[in-house]
């Protein structure tokens, strides 16, 4: 590998559980992207490196970061179409489209995530019960592959590779640009309504009932002890029709700097949860909120992640059928009682879509847990892993850095189709990440 235009660096997954010394490059011209690809044996694509699991690196691959490919290539207001390069961040995209009252609603949780990263992860936002995943907004993709060269992908052109690429965790080649079909939005402000819930079953029922009335519905639940397990708040966001001002959002910098020592533990979590719940009870049940706080819930709240310290955390995001939810939660609580894990975040939302290939989507309930990274929690999580087959649960491989090949094979029933098609397309398996090597994709 030619060392010009590359550098060696140590990199961590966003959850900080996996690190690697990698070769990193940031091409800023098309020719340079081609040259670096041609000169590298194995490649993987990296965006802002905000995926919880190590999708963007491997110690055996050159990580190609296309953050300098961040231009708007085409925009048609009347047809609501926009073509942007994959290094454009979500905040840069929204800063442009919202001027025209347009957007894509499948926005993952942090503004500096790149378009390429969002497409490769088939990301979803808070409104996934109505809008599903980003797949629903994609019209076409321009891909560069070391062997196949430049490929236009869409429903009508190279459809099989188009399908593999969306949610294909960057294994089909470098996503260079994406054309989106945009949706109209009336305002850049939201009205948030809150509903208190006492149990997780009540929370699930509220979310399912209200999903038809509100596109943004999700919960925050307590899981610091068994007594209050599931107690929490259901949030519903509505677009505020009365407001129509648009002020450009500031350039966003990642403020993720883990503290030297972890601050999340049983006591701090219980204390913060108690304060947070009380504040929610005491404040108005209906309030106006700005766009950034609703769409990017962790923006300006990065200390939540920094509090995990250098050892990091593990996020588990699971899709489960609504009819299996109660039984699963019952078993979850039994294991919780026995192993007493330290859970910092517990949340529910509803999701719509069809599970195919490696995509984390289905007409199911989406449960999210964040755990402090310690041996006790890892043991607890392994016990939960063993329930996936029984309850037909789909764990997110982009969130959970621990998932083993065995769990992956059992949960992702369509993964063999993805692997077969990918190997047919790329016989040398050029594009490989830590996760693709671990799961033998």
């Amino acid at each position, binding site marked *: 590998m030619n060392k010009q235009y590359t550098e060696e660096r140590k990199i961590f997954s966003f959850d900080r559980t996996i690190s690697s010394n990698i070769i990193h490059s940031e091409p800023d011209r098309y020719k340079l992207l081609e040259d670096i690809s041609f000169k590298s044996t194995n490649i993987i694509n990296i965006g802002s490196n905000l995926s919880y699991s190590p999708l963007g690196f491997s110690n055996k691959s050159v990580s190609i970061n296309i953050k300098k490919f961040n*231009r708007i290539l085409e925009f048609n207001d009347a047809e609501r179409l926009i073509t942007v390069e994959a290094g454009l961040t979500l905040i840069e995209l929204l800063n442009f489209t919202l001027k025209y009252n347009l957007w894509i609603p499948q926005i993952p949780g942090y503004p500096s995530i790149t378009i390429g990263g969002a497409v490769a992860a088939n990301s979803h936002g808070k409104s996934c019960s109505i809008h599903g995943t980003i797949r629903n907004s994609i019209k076409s993709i321009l891909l560069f592959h070391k062997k196949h060269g430049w490929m236009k992908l869409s429903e009508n052109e190279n459809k099989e590779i188009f399908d593999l690429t969306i949610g294909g965790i960057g294994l089909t080649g470098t996503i260079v640009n994406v054309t989106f079909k945009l949706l109209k939005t009336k305002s850049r402000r939201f009205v948030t309504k809150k509903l208190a819930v006492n149990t997780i079953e009540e929370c699930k029922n509220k979310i399912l009932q209200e999903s038809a009335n509100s596109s943004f519905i999700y919960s925050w639940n307590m899981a610091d002890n068994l007594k209050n397990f599931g107690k929490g708040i259901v949030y519903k966001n509505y677009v505020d029709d009365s407001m129509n001002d648009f002020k450009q959002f500031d350039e966003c910098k990642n403020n993720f700097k883990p503290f030297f020592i972890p601050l999340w533990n049983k006591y701090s979590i219980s204390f913060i949860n108690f304060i947070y719940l009380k504040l929610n009870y005491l404040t108005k049940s209906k309030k106006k909120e700005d766009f950034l706080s609703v769409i990017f819930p962790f923006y300006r709240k990065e200390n939540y992640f920094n509090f995990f310290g250098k050892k990091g955390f593990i996020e588990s995001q699971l899709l489960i059928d609504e009819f299996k939810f109660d039984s699963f939660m019952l078993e979850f609580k039994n294991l919780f009682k026995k192993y007493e894990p330290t859970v910092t975040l517990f949340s529910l939302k509803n999701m719509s879509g069809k599970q195919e290939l490696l995509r984390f989507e289905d007409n199911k309930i989406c449960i999210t847990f964040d755990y402090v990274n310690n041996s006790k929690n890892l043991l607890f999580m392994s016990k939960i892993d063993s329930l996936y087959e029984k309850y037909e649960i789909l764990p997110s491989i982009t969130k959970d850095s621990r998932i083993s090949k065995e769990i992956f094979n059992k949960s992702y029933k369509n993964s063999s189709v993805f692997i077969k098609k990918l190997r047919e397309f790329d016989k040398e398996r050029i594009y490989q990440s830590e996760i693709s090597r671990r799961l033998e994709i």
Partner: protein
Amino acid sequence: MTYLIIGASSGLGRELAIKFAKKNYNLIIVSRDERDLIAIKSDLEIKYKINVNFISLDFFSIDEIDKKLFSKKNFLEEIQGVLFPVGTMFEQDNTMLNAVNINKLLSSNYISIVYTIQRLRKYLVNKEKSTIVGFGSVSSFLGREINSVYAGAKRALESYFESLAFDQNFKKINIQFYTLGYLDTNLSFGKDLKLPKGPIKKLSEIVYKNKNANFKKLTFPKYWKVVDLIIKLVPFSIIRKFSEILSK
């Protein structure tokens, strides 16, 4: 008003194009690869509602400059200023570089710039507040083992820009020359540099702000001025001795 930017596809050139576009100037951007130029044109036109024309050419070829740039008289008549954030470097550039590459380095870093300025003069001289901006390199402060030809070309370029300042034929045109140290571009990416890189965003703001200055010579990042001063004050024999010790 239109600015011509030679070498606009990446690094400082691209940043300057963004800066001038933000200030609502139309642009003619020149670089080798049409794909990069099309992307920059689309982005700037969509975001800032300006007109961007592009010309793809190899800047070390006088023939291409004649055929592709100077054939477009209608473009050139509009220009208010020209910026040359252009440069070519070869990894194998040293005191024994082959003739073909010497020719390429001298052409793109010096001869083509001089030639373009000479031919653009007639389009700029009668305009109010017209500007020519050149970019040198701190590598020209002192002879060197690597990038020897590049450094020589950049030293020649600085001398040429000083000559422009003295030349009565260019009296009405604002001339500016920036001697550049390490910048946060792909040219310095991954290199083990002992001194910090200067942000190109800040540099593009300085260049924009100074565009109407009558004659300006600046060093960026500023700390290179101190390095330059030391090199000028210390006798060459001592510098050579010091370099020998370091290389051991």
